[in-house]
């Protein structure tokens, strides 16, 4: 058994102020087992009474070596690792990875698959924001919001289960399209959700937005200006709350996002309340996209016909020798990708989710790097929490929307 050791200030000497060395301020560990650190994040706090002087995040408790593991799998099999990164946005991770593979090997995706991908990632964005809103409320002692949010998230998870057989780790989006077509009940289920959900968003707003206790806790807390945000690589709702209109779905449209009419909600205050409002507005924008995509959902195939990259359907394997060979080759050896590298990015609920993919001419990726938004968003913590109370630190941390699987990879 490992022995418990007293934490030495030595390695952190250059991060804390002089007053901590002389013992004037207190050093305190928050986490890694703390309910409001959203997983296994450890913060080394330097406190002057109850005021935060420095908050130094210490990450890596959930490091699972995903990037290393992906190098040992074929392009098709490495995809299951991506679900496990940001477990609140599984279809979004699949989409980012599949788009990178498609770009590397130059593979087309049929329009029906594109529309289904958009619907599912937008549903997942709503589900992710629901968990965010619930946990955010919980951290601010608004217990009921959490229960309502998880009630609605359950409807979305049911839709994902209906399509893929899995509630969370779907791996439904595959290079070249999607695994198989959505079931017949899909459209009715999504329309039912679209009917229920707008009223529910209004309910959340009635509970939180104009609640004086919430306003006291949120307005003016954790201000982040646009220049600092960009320099720290902050993206997503957090950047948009600081007044920068930057959304990859608008800026570099992928998967046919250019045909949908939606707004990019922005706020200029950059405080915790602005981040809350941006998240709430994104619920409504995502619903707009889902509705439009569902209305013009084209008919046709759901994956590319290029059998060098996409496994054939089960029905063909029994009757076609070529299909059997392709099936066997793709699932054992995999397909080769050129000796080149690409970077492709999508807008995840947390920001720019980029995939750097390098091939070496063989069937396994030579190097995969996931540019995960939470990592960069968390790096700004120390700057925006200084001078606030510990209770405000909890609110700020909740508003950043971190997912530790996303950070530690």
């Amino acid at each position, binding site marked *: 058994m490992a022995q418990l050791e007293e934490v030495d200030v030595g390695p952190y000497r*250059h991060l804390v102020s002089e007053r901590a060395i002389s013992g004037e301020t207190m050093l305190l560990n928050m986490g890694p087992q703390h309910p409001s650190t959203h997983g296994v994040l450890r913060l080394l706090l330097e406190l002057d009474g109850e005021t935060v002087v420095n908050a130094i995040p210490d990450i890596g408790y959930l490091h699972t070596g995903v990037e290393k593991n992906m190098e040992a799998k074929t392009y098709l099999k490495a995809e299951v690792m991506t679900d496990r990164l940001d477990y609140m946005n599984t279809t979004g991770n699949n989409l980012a990875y599949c788009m990178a593979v498609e770009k590397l090997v130059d593979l087309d995706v049929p329009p029906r698959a594109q529309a289904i991908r958009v619907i599912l990632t937008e549903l997942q964005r709503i589900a992710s924001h629901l968990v965010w809103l619930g946990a955010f409320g919980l951290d601010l002692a608004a217990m009921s919001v959490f229960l309502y949010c998880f009630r609605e998230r359950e409807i979305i998870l049911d839709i994902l289960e209906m399509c893929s057989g899995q509630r969370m780790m779907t791996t439904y989006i595959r290079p070249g399209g999607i695994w198989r077509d959505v079931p017949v009940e899909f459209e009715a289920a999504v329309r039912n959700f679209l009917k229920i959900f707008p009223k529910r968003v209004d309910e959340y707003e009635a509970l939180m937005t104009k609640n004086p206790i919430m306003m006291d806790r949120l307005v003016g807390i954790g201000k982040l200006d646009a220049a600092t945000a960009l320099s720290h690589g902050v993206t997503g709702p957090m950047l948009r709350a600081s007044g920068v209109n*930057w959304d990859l779905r608008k*800026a*570099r449209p992928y998967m046919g996002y250019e045909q949908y009419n939606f707004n990019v909600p922005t706020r200029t205050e950059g405080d915790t309340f602005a981040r809350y409002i941006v998240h709430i507005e994104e619920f409504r924008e995502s619903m707009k996209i889902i509705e439009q995509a569902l209305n013009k959902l084209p008919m046709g195939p759901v994956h590319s016909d290029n059998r060098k990259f996409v496994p054939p359907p089960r029905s063909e394997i029994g009757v076609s020798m070529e299909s059997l060979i392709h099936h066997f080759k793709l699932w054992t050896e995999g397909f080769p990708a050129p000796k080149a*590298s690409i*970077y492709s990015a999508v807008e995840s609920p947390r920001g720019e989710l980029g995939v*750097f993919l390098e091939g070496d001419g063989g069937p396994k990726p030579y190097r995969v790097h996931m*540019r995960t938004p939470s990592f*960069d968003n968390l790096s700004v913590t120390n700057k925006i929490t200084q001078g606030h109370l510990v209770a405000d630190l909890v609110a700020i941390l909740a508003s950043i929307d971190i997912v530790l699987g996303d950070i530690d990879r």
Partner: protein
Amino acid sequence: MDTKLETIVKTAQAKFGATYEEFRGEVHIFVGSEKIVEALTLLRDNHQFELLSALTAVDYWPQNSPRFHVIYQLSSLANNVTVQIRVPVDGDQPKVPTTTSVYDVSNWREREVADMFGIEFEGHPDPRRILMPEDWKGHPLRKDYPLGYEEPQFTFNFDEIDVRKPYVKE
């Protein structure tokens, strides 16, 4: 190639003696490690590359010169273009000057590359490991680092496997 990217490539060629490659519309500019801070500062100030999207590395072991490429993926919000800067680094005592003075995000991202690849970023203000434990030996994403596994211990073979665990040797 985009006209904006073309001017950037031309500037880099004239100022830093850079070469470039193009693949599927993406431009990779190769810059020497001694010029990287200057190059990033120029791109940020004169070409509106406000965002350092990604900072990572690739290991080309057993090739030693260059063994690594350190990769800086830059995004410009104003012009809506991206460009990739690659810095080749040799395998013996790999070193690159830190870019924390240009982008704040470099701080954590360089710690990650140093942790995973063992590339030293000279002048880094906080050169601790970030993802692996402080006392970890080796750099996991290097190609000569094996993808190992840990033997699962059960009640019946706990002690037998325990003697083979790395902490016993210390």
